């Protein structure tokens, strides 16, 4: 009886179907290549998971207030090359570079938020414009040539692993836990969700929409910056192209995880699993040696299947709730 209840509650949770889906995919991969479960391979998996996880939350927090941040990738790339540049060209020690890099991300995000809040211009347009600005800075500074000489400690960190876990996974874990706490137990976190849920009502309740907009974008910028620096650690190079490919995945993960683009809801576990599913899909295709021509098609089909499955489950849960009430 009690188990039954637990099972029901598990199935009713919005992330349950994604969890099942990822487990199924992992099982499939284990069957294809028994080596999949190797610590080696798991470490690789977690390693590529790490930056994307942070990126997904950089987007999720802005989706939470019903806006978008198209500049996540551009901020990440800009912070990445500044970070790399500070260490190579100026020889800054790692902690100093991290601190300045982080500050850059915060500043970039705050700039986005402030422009949106005070000008009243649609966030989509503002972040699209700042995307150009940040990317332009990156290009202008590097002329698209990477910074190669990264300190050994950083490179070591990017490659180290503990058992099946890549060392760099610690960063997203900290970020996600902190964010989860923030959104649930901090007043400002609640305010972000309130504004996303109903901006007008929140305003009438004395919550400043402008302040919340700036806050959410600042957090987003900070996370994007962290993801950029983490990518430098992971790649061992201050690549100007970092962030170029983040945009779609940054939306896809939270949305697969159950985020609502209108705002008001940020699924923590859902987003984590969304990232996992995306990475697993790509890994599955590589390991299965799918004919490259079919690759794109399967990525699309699998995303559709994943979301469809999740949605079907939530519909079922909803229906059961209504019937149960009767």
């Amino acid at each position, binding site marked *: 009886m009690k188990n039954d209840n637990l099972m029901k509650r598990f199935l009713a949770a919005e992330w349950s179907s994604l969890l099942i889906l990822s487990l199924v995919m992992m099982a499939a991969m284990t069957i294809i290549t028994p080596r999949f479960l190797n610590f080696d391979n798991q470490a690789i998996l977690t390693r590529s998971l790490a930056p994307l996880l942070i990126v997904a939350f950089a987007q999720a927090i802005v989706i939470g207030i019903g806006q978008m941040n*198209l500049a996540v990738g551009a901020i990440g790339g800009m912070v990445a090359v500044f970070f790399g540049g500070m260490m190579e060209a100026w020889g800054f020690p790692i902690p100093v570079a991290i601190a300045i890099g982080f500050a850059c991300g915060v500043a970039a995000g705050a700039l986005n938020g402030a*422009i949106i809040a005070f*000008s*009243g*211009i*649609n966030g*989509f*347009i*503002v972040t*699209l*414009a*700042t*995307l*150009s*600005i*940040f*990317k*332009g*800075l990156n*290009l*202008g500074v590097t*002329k*698209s040539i990477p910074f190669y000489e990264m300190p050994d400690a950083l490179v070591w960190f990017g490659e180290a692993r503990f058992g099946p876990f890549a060392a760099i996974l610690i960063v997203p874990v900290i970020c996600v836990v902190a964010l989860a706490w923030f959104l649930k137990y901090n007043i400002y976190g609640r305010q972000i969700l309130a504004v996303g849920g109903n901006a007008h009502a929140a305003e009438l309740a004395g919550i400043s929409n402008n302040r919340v907009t700036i806050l959410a974008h600042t957090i987003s910028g900070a996370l994007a910056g962290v993801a950029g620096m983490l990518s430098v650690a992971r790649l061992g190079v201050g690549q100007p192209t970092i962030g170029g490919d983040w945009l*779609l995945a940054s*939306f*896809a993960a939270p*949305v*697969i995880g159950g985020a*609502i*683009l209108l705002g008001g809801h940020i699924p923590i576990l859902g987003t984590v699993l969304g990232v996992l599913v995306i990475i697993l899909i790509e890994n599955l295709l590589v390991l299965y040696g799918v004919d490259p*021509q*079919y*690759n*794109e*098609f*399967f*990525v*699309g*089909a699998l*995303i*559709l299947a994943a*979301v*469809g499955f999740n*949605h079907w489950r939530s519909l079922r849960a909803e229906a059961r709730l209504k019937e149960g009430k009767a």
Partner: protein
Amino acid sequence: MPPRPDAVNLNELLARIAKSAGLALIVGVLILIFVYGAQGFTSKFNLFNLTRNLSVAAVVGFGMMVVLALGHMNLALGSTALASVMIMGWVMKVAALPVPVAVGCGLAVGSLLGLLNGWLIVKTKLHSFIITLATASMFLGLVLIMFPGGPISDLPREFTGISKTRYFGWVSGMLLITLVAGVVLAVMYRFTTLGRQMLATGANPDAAELSGIPVSRAILLAHTLSGFLAALAGVMFTARQGSALLSTGEDWLLASFLAPLLGGTLLAGGYVSVVGAFLGAMLVGILQNGLVLIGVPDFWVEFVLGLTLLITVSLDRLRNVLAARRGN
């Protein structure tokens, strides 16, 4: 007592014009700046290319605008265009059918893929974002599977000629296609039941449904239209490139949003501005063209582009705010 409710309100009419007027003014000022500041801007060669690029960009913007009207998105715009032009190229070159037939096929494929998007959205009730994100990959994948040989080049002159026609020596003939598409869309939204139904659906789907509007049909049609416009943009792009390229539509995504949003179309749905979308495409096109001509170093063009975009949009916004104050 209440003023005559149907008195055509001059203020409102002016306000409606003024909405686009701000953007038009900015575009005008930019043109002036570039005419005097950017060497070569007024050369026939440059103006011809400018109008040609702009024609394609505006149709791409329209393609996104028609789903934005619903509060939806179409991330598969580029892939749809790709699939359409590849099939068009195949019909033209491999099946060797007449050009109009091939173009018709291309447009039909685009519309069908759009319809498929719409159908999936209506059936699953999932957000258009995620559906079209997935179908974008799937359409691209299908093209890669169907055309392992890559691009189809050397399309007939009869077809590529579309992109070479020019009036007065500097206006691209393709601008005509864009204008026709724009007028049709504007008429649809202002003067037809269908257009109104789409806007009502976008503004408040629940209320639209409860008012007896065939919401599903509106969604299906809007996405079909979006697919059609994507294909049309693809056809124009292909005429210009002379071959059906696998890179067609690869990078249309952000630009397709930018033009309508700059023009005042709401991301949330329920309001569109066709003229605005056209002006938006113009703004971006002219900036991209003029900034290089004015001598901004290549690696900094992107930076300056973003900055000027931000400044111009803020100016427009400021103008609106001031105008509202004055109305007080």
